[in-house]
C-alpha cells in the first residue's frame, strides 16, 4: 500500500479506479427515462411477488392514517398476488430454501 508511492504513481491508481469507462452504447440504452422505467418495473415486480413486506412497511408508518391510500393500494396488490398464486410461490420457495439449508425460519 503506502510504501509504493514511487513505484505506483497516483495516476495509475486512479486510472484503474474508473468503474465503467465511457463507450458507445445503443441510443435506446442511454435514455434516462428508460432506465427509470426499468428500475421502477423491477421494484414493482418485486413488491408484487413479495407484497407482505410492503404492506407491513406501510402499516408500521401509518400511525396517523396519512398512508391510508398507499396502504389500501398495497393491500389490493397483496390480494391480487395471493389470488394469482404469485405470493404463495415466493413464500413457498423461501420456506423450501430455508428448510434445505436448515434454518427452519418462515
Amino acid at each position: 500500500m503506502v510504501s509504493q508511492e514511487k513505484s505506483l504513481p497516483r495516476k495509475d491508481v486512479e486510472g484503474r479506479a474508473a468503474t465503467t469507462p465511457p463507450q458507445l452504447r445503443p441510443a435506446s440504452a442511454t435514455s434516462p427515462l428508460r432506465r427509470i422505467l426499468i428500475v421502477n418495473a423491477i421494484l414493482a415486480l418485486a413488491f408484487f411477488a413479495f407484497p407482505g413486506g410492503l404492506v407491513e412497511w406501510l402499516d408500521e408508518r401509518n400511525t396517523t392514517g396519512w398512508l391510508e391510500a398507499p396502504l389500501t393500494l398495497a393491500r389490493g396488490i397483496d390480494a391480487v398476488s395471493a389470488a394469482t398464486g404469485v405470493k404463495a410461490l415466493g413464500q413457498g420457495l423461501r420456506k423450501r430454501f430455508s428448510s434445505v439449508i436448515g434454518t427452519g425460519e418462515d
Partner: protein
Amino acid sequence: MLFPTIDFGLFFALSLALVWSLNSHNNLKKVVLLALSLAFYASWNWRFLLLLLASGAISYLVGLYVDAAAARPYRRAVLTLGVALDLGILAYFKYLDFFIAQVLTLAHDLGLNPSIAFVNVTLPVAISFMTFHAISYIIDVFRGRLAASRSPVDILLYISFFPHLVAGPIVRAHEFLPQLASPRNAGDFSFGENMLLILGGLFKKMVIANYLAVRFVDPVFTDPSQFSRFDLVMAVYAYAIQIYADFSAYTDIAIGVAALLGYRFPQNFNQPYRALGIGDFWRRWHMTLSTWLRDYLYIPLGGNRHGAFATARNLMLTMLLGGLWHGANWTFLIWGGMHGAALIADHSWRRSVAFARYGTGGLAKIVDWALTFHFVCFAWLFFRSPSLDSATQYLLGIWTDNGAQSTMPGIVPPLIACGALTQFVPPQTRAVLGAMLDDRGAVAQAAFGFAILYFVIVMAPSASAPFIYFQF
C-alpha cells in the same frame, strides 16, 4: 436507511426520477441532490445534520482561504486549523470516552481517583468517512490540486452525497467536484453493468454476509468459550469472507447507485484475498482508504524517502492510525499494528537479494499467497473481537479446544466457498455481461433484473446483520 431495504428502494426510485428530470437544470439538480442526501442522513438522526452542515461550512471557508492560487498570509496555519477542527469533531464523538477510560485506568493503577466523567455521546453515523472527505478537500485545495469551490452547495454535496455518505468509498474532491460542473450524460455509464453491480452487491450482502453473520460468526465471537477449536478456526475464515462480502457489497451498491444517477466513484476492492504480500493486499482492500492514508498521512510523514528506519516508522504510524480510524478500541489498534509490522517486513523482503533470487518462482508465489491470506485472517480475529479480553479468550479456545463439539451449520462451507469464488471471477466478466444486457430490450432488462432480485429475496434470511462499516 440501509441499502437492502424497502425504504432505500423507494428513496432510490424517487431520487433517480428527480435527478434525471432536472438534469438540464444543473444548479437546481444539485440542490435537490443535496436535499435528498441530507434527508438520507437525517433518517438515522436528524440532530446530526448540524454536524454535517458544520463540516461542510468548515471545508467551504477554509477551502476559500487556503486556495493555492491566492497569495494569502497564514495559509498553512488556516489549513492546520481546518484539519484540527475536522479531527476535533471526530475525536470528541469517537475517541474522547476511550481516552477518558484509559486515563481513569492508569490513574486507578497509580492509586489516584480523579473526577473525570465520560461524555457519553452517541456516535454519529458516517463521522469517520465524513471527516476524511472534508480533510481531503481542504488539503487538495491547499496543494493546488483543485481550485476552491465557490459553491457551498457543491462542497456540502461532495461531503454528504448519499451513495458514499455512510460507508464510502472515500471519493476524493478532485474526482467528484468536476462532475458537478455540468449536466450528466447517462450514456457514459453502462446500465447493464451497474445493474449487475447493484444486484451482485445485494446477493453478497443479503445472502453470503447475512447468513455467515447470523448463523455462525456472531454467535461464535459473542461467546467463544462455548465453541470447539474447529468452530473457532472456521469462524475466523467465515468472518474473512463475511467482512469482504459485506463491505464490498456496500461499495458495489454505492458505485452502482451513483453511476445510475450519473456520477463516477472510484473502485474500492480488487479481489483482495488473491494478494501476494501485505503491500499487495492493501492495494486491493479498501483501496480508497489505502490511497487516502498514503497521500494524506504516509507521504507527509516522509514516506520512504528518508531511509529504512523512517520508512518503517512511517508505515507503523500510518497503520496504527488507520486501525484507530476504525474505532476507539485496543483491538483495532492491535489490528493496525499487526498490519504495520507485516508491511514493514513485506517492504524489506521485497527489496532484499533473497527475494530477487527465491521469491519470484511459482512455489514462492503459492507460499506468499498462503502466508498473506492466513495472516490477514488471523488479524481479522482481533478486528472482529469486541474487546481484548474476548480476543484472548478466543485464542485460548483455539489452544485448549474448550472441550466442545462442533456445531457449525452445514451452510457455512458452501457460503465460504461461494465468497471465495468471487476472488477468482475474471475482472472483465461484469463488463462483458453488462454490455450484453445493454444490447437487450427494456423488457428483457427488467425481467433479468427482477429474476436476480427474486432469487436474492428467496435466499435471504429473515434476520439481517447491519453493514459492518456503518459503525465506523
